[in-house]
C-alpha cells in the first residue's frame, strides 16, 4: 500500500487530529475497562468450551450467566463463582453445571477465603486457556494457507456479499462468487440478529435477508471457502458481523472458526440499532481484543453515517469516526494492518464536481491511514432503480477506488435498492470492477492532484472540520456528567441520532466491575499469554 503522499497534509495537523481522538477516547476506554457485560461473560464461557442450547434453543451460556447474575451478580466475573461451584462438586463438568443452573439447582457464591478464590480462578484460567490456544492455532492455519496459496494478485481486494438466509444455499453461491473473482465473501446476517441477546445454535436455513451467524454456520462456510480456495489457488477470506448485543461472543466464535474479517464499528450499534453506548464500548473492547489475537481484520461502518447525513456536509464526521475507531482499535491491541476503516462513495451525483469531492475524501482517508486496509463502499443512497445510471455510478466508484489506492472494494450492484442481485447483476458488477482495475489499476501512480488545487484544498478542509468538531466536543461542558464523546453521541453529533448513555438496549446487561473482578480470557488477551 505505498500511496504517494500526494495530498501534502501538514504533519502537525495530522498529529493534532490523532491526539484529539485520543483525548476523546481515553475516558471511554476507562469506562470500558471498569465495566463488564453479560455478553463478555458469555464469550468467556464459550472460550472455555461451553456450547449448545436447551430444547427451546436458549444457549447454555445464557442460562449459566443468568443464573450467576441472579445469585451473586456479574460484577466479580462469572468464572470465579462458576469454577468455585465446580470445585465444590455442584456438577461434574461445565455443561452439566449449566443444565443444573438452568433449573435453579446450583448455589453460587463468591468464595470468601482467599485460597478458595485463588483455586477457583486458577481452574477457570486452565479452562479458558485451550479456547485461546485454539484461536492461536486458527491464526497459524490462516498464515500457513496464505503462505501456500497466496493473497489476491491485485489491490483492492474484491469483496462480495451473499445472503440467502439458508447456509446451504449460501455455500454454493459463495463458492461461485469466489470462482467469479471475489477475494472476500461476506455472509450478511439475518435482519434483527443484532438485537438478539443470544447467539443461535447450529446450521440455520431460515434467515431474513441474511443468514444467522452461528458457530456451525461459520464452520461450514469456512470449510467451503477453504475447498474453493485450494481449487483457485488463492486464500478466500470470510467475513461476518461482530456487532449487536452479542458482539463479544460472535468475535470469540469467529476466532475459533477462523473467520478473517469482522464488521466491528465503535458506534454503529449505538446509532443505528439503539444499543446502549456503555454496553457497546465494553463489548467492543473485548471483541477487538479477541480480533487482535485472532489476526482478524475489522471493518468499520463509517459508510452508514453518509446514508443518513449528507456526504459532503458530514464528510468530516467520517474522518472523526475513523480516528476514533483507530484509537479504540489500537488500544485494544489491533495493528494497522487489521484496521479496515470504512468510507463510502455517497455524494449526490447531481452535485457539480461530485467525483472530485469523492476523490478528495477517499485520498484523505488513504493518507491519514496509510497502512490500514481501507474498505471502500459503493453508492447506495443515490441508487434510484435506474440500473443504467447505477451501473455507471458503480464504474466511477470503482475508478475512484483504483485512483486513490483503496484496499478492499465492496462490489456495488446496479440492483442496489431494487431487488436481490440476479446472477447476471453480480457478473456485470464484477466485469465493471475488472474493466476498471485492468484499465486503470495503476493510475494511483500517476494521479497527483496539483498543489493547492481543488482536491488538496477540499481534503485539508475536511480534516480541519474534523479537528474543529473534536475540539468542540472536548470543550463542551458536560450537561449530564458524561465524558465528551458520550455527550456528543447523546446530542446527535453522529448520523443525526441522539443516543444518551443511560438509555438504549442491553443496558441491563452492564455491570460496574467489583474490585475482585476476574476474567481469565481478558487476562490472557491483555498479557499476550
Amino acid at each position, binding site marked *: 500500500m505505498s500511496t504517494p503522499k500526494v495530498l501534502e497534509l501538514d504533519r502537525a495537523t495530522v498529529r493534532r487530529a490523532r491526539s484529539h481522538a485520543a483525548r476523546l477516547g481515553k475516558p471511554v476506554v476507562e469506562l470500558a475497562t471498569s465495566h463488564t457485560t453479560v455478553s463478555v461473560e458469555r464469550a468467556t464461557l464459550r472460550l472455555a468450551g461451553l456450547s449448545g442450547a436447551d430444547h427451546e434453543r436458549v444457549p447454555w451460556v445464557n442460562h449459566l450467566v443468568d443464573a450467576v447474575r441472579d445469585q451473586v451478580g456479574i460484577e466479580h466475573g462469572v468464572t470465579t463463582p462458576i469454577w468455585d461451584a465446580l470445585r465444590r462438586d455442584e456438577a461434574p463438568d461445565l455443561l452439566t453445571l449449566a443444565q443444573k443452573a438452568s433449573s435453579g439447582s446450583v448455589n453460587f457464591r463468591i468464595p470468601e477465603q482467599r485460597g478458595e478464590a485463588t483455586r477457583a480462578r486458577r481452574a477457570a484460567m486452565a479452562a479458558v486457556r485451550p479456547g485461546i490456544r485454539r484461536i492461536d492455532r486458527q491464526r497459524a492455519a490462516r498464515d500457513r494457507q496464505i503462505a501456500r496459496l497466496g493473497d489476491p494478485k491485485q489491490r483492492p481486494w474484491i469483496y462480495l456479499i451473499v445472503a440467502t438466509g439458508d447456509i446451504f444455499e449460501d455455500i454454493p453461491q459463495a463458492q*461461485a462468487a469466489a*470462482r*467469479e473473482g471475489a477475494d472476500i465473501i461476506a455472509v450478511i446476517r439475518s*435482519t*434483527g*440478529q443484532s*438485537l*438478539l441477546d443470544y447467539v443461535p445454535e447450529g446450521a440455520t436455513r431460515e434467515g*431474513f*435477508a441474511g443468514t444467522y451467524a452461528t458457530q456451525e454456520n461459520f464452520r461450514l462456510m469456512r470449510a467451503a471457502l477453504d475447498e474453493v480456495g485450494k481449487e483457485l489457488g488463492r486464500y478466500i477470506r470470510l467475513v461476518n458481523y461482530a456487532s449487536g448485543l452479542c458482539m463479544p461472543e460472535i468475535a470469540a466464535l469467529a476466532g475459533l472458526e477462523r473467520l478473517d474479517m469482522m464488521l466491528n464499528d465503535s458506534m454503529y450499534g449505538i446509532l*443505528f440499532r*439503539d444499543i446502549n453506548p456503555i454496553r457497546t464500548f465494553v463489548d467492543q473492547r473485548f471483541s477487538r481484543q479477541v480480533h487482535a489475537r485472532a489476526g482478524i481484520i475489522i471493518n468499520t461502518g463509517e459508510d452508514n453515517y453518509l*446514508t*443518513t447525513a449528507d456526504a459532503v456536509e458530514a464528510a468530516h464526521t467520517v474522518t472523526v469516526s475513523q480516528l476514533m475507531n483507530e484509537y479504540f482499535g489500537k488500544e485494544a491491541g489491533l495493528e494497522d494492518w487489521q484496521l479496515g476503516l470504512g468510507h463510502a462513495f455517497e455524494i449526490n451525483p447531481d452535485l457539480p464536481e461530485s467525483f472530485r469531492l469523492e476523490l478528495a475524501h477517499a485520498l484523505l482517508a488513504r493518507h491519514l491511514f496509510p497502512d490500514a486496509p481501507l474498505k471502500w463502499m459503493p453508492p447506495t*443512497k*443515490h441508487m*434510484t432503480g435506474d440500473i443504467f445510471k447505477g451501473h455507471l455510478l458503480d464504474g466511477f466508484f470503482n475508478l475512484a477506488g483504483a485512483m486513490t489506492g483503496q484496499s478492499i472494494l465492496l462490489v456495488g450492484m446496479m440492483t442496489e*435498492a431494487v431487488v436481490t442481485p*440476479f*446472477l*447476471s447483476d453480480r*457478473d456485470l458488477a464484477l466485469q465493471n470492477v475488472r474493466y476498471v482495475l485492468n484499465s486503470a489499476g495503476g493510475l494511483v501512480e500517476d494521479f497527483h492532484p496539483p498543489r493547492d488545487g481543488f482536491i488538496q484544498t477540499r481534503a485539508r478542509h475536511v480534516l480541519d472540520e474534523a479537528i474543529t468538531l473534536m475540539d468542540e466536543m472536548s470543550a463542551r461542558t458536560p450537561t449530564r456528567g458524561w465524558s465528551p464523546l458520550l455527550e456528543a453521541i447523546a446530542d446527535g453529533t453522529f*448520523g*443525526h*441520532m441522539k443516543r444518551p448513555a443511560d438509555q438504549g*438496549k442491553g443496558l441491563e446487561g452492564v455491570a460496574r466491575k467489583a474490585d475482585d473482578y476476574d476474567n481469565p480470557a481478558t487476562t490472557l488477551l491483555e498479557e499476550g499469554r
Partner: protein
Amino acid sequence: MSNTAGGGHVSSTPTPGERSGTQGSVVRPYGDMTGDGMIQVSFTLPVPHDKRAEGAALQLAGKMGMSPALLVHAKAMGPEHTFFVVYGSVTHLVELDKVEVLERDFPLLSAKEINTTIKKTLRRPLVVVGACIGTDAHTVGIDAILNIKGFAGEKGLEYYSEVQVVNLGAQVLVPELVERAREEQADAVLVSQVVTQRDAHIHNTTAMSAAFREAYPAGAVPILIAGGPRFEEGSAKALGVDRIFGKGTTPSEVASYLIHAVAQRHGAATRQQPAKEQQ
C-alpha cells in the same frame, strides 16, 4: 436497430392514426420511430453458452411477443448459465383506455406540508407509537418507517419536526404496547410484522387490534396501522386495523396517510360536537 427489425414486418401494424399517437388509445413501445414497437430485454437462462442456448433465448423472446427478435449479446455466466440481451419489436399493443390504476385515496404530501398540516389541525405534535409485536425481532420494517435513517432515500417519521415517535423496537407484548400507547396518548400505532410462519402476522395483528378496542372507548382507538411484506391488500377490515402497508412503502406515504386519517377524524369530531350539544 431499426434497420434490421422494423415494425413493418409485424402483422398488426398500427394504422396511421394510431401511429401519430394523438388519436387512438392504442400505443406501441417507441424505439426510435413511432409505432416501431421496439423493446430491449436482458435475462439469464440456466444453460451453457452454445448455439442451442442462443436459440433458446430467441424462442423465449418470441414467446414474449418479440418478432422479429435480435439477439445482440450472449455471454456465459459460469459453466451453467448464459446471459442474453435481446432487442426486438413486440407484437403486443397497449390499450390505454383499458389501463386500470389503483389510485391512492389520500394525497402524498412533502415533509413540510405534513408538518404544517399537523400544526394547523392538531396544534400539537402527532404522537406515533411503533413496535414489532409478538416474537418478531425483525425491526427492519418499523425502523425504515420510523427511524431517522428512513428508507429509499426518504427520512423516517423521527425526522418530521411535528411528529413525536416512540419506537418500542422488537418483541413487544401487546399489553405493553397498549399501555405505552395510552401513556403517550398516541394518535397512531404502527406495528410491523415480518415473520409469517404459521400466519403469525395475522394472529398477532388481530390480537393487537382487539386489545386496543377493549382498552379504549369506542371511537377513541388510535389509528392502527399494520405493515409487512406478506399482508394481503384489502385485509385491513378483517384484521381490525385502519390500514395495511405492504412492501416498498416509504415513510412519507405513511405520514401522508396519517395526516389524512387524523384530519378525517378531527373533522368528524368537530362536526359532531355541535350536534351533541343540541340534544
